[in-house]
């Protein structure tokens, strides 16, 4: 069964540093998403991406965040200057069309110290 692959599985970074979280969506999917889950809390939407541009973003997705699809397979989330409160599990997801449910990756646990 096709999977969404995320790397690394765990990233520890110092406050103020830049991090890039990487995702390889399912190959024939066209819509890409980032969500995050702070430990023990609900899954929160960050951003959706289609046709090489952001289609929607949440209030959480401020100027410190950016997304990019640098080639035909990768989809990245960059946090420019990490804060302690950015510590969370970050999930990438993809879907073949807007009216379909997502396939989530296994997540990257980001710890900011």
């Amino acid at each position, binding site marked *: 069964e096709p999977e969404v692959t995320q790397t690394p599985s765990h990233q520890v970074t110092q406050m103020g540093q830049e991090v890039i979280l990487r995702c390889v969506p399912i190959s024939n999917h066209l819509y890409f*998403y980032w969500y995050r889950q702070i430990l023990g809390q609900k*899954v*929160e939407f960050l951003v959706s991406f289609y046709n090489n541009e952001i289609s929607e973003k949440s209030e959480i997705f401020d100027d410190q965040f950016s997304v990019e699809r640098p080639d035909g397979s990768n989809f990245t989330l960059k946090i420019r200057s990490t804060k302690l409160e950015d510590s969370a599990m970050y999930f990438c997801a993809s879907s073949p069309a807007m009216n379909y449910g997502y396939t*989530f990756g296994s997540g990257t646990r980001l710890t900011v110290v």
Partner: protein
Amino acid sequence: QQQVKQSPQSLIVQKGGISIINCAYENTAFDYFPWYQQFPGKGPALLIAIRPDVSEKKEGRFTISFNKSAKQFSLHIMDSQPGDSATYFCAARGATGNQFYFGTGTSLTVIP
């Protein structure tokens, strides 16, 4: 503002019993309601989903009941098994179709 409210926060069920998790929403523009199952260290996995023009959907032991007038929907797990022990999230898709609003999750434990 919490778009989707989920209850209970945790649930313990005997093997073979019925697990019931409830969700309520406010926004009548929501048009797709999935349930996700999440095991520790894994991403949420789509379990079953329903659209608001249907009152019930069944897939194996899993059933969604949907009450459009009450703006509520629930997940029923029949003949619950220890392997069903996981966190379950309900979700609702926003009007733009670009994002889902998740409930706060229910930790289900099925006791052998």
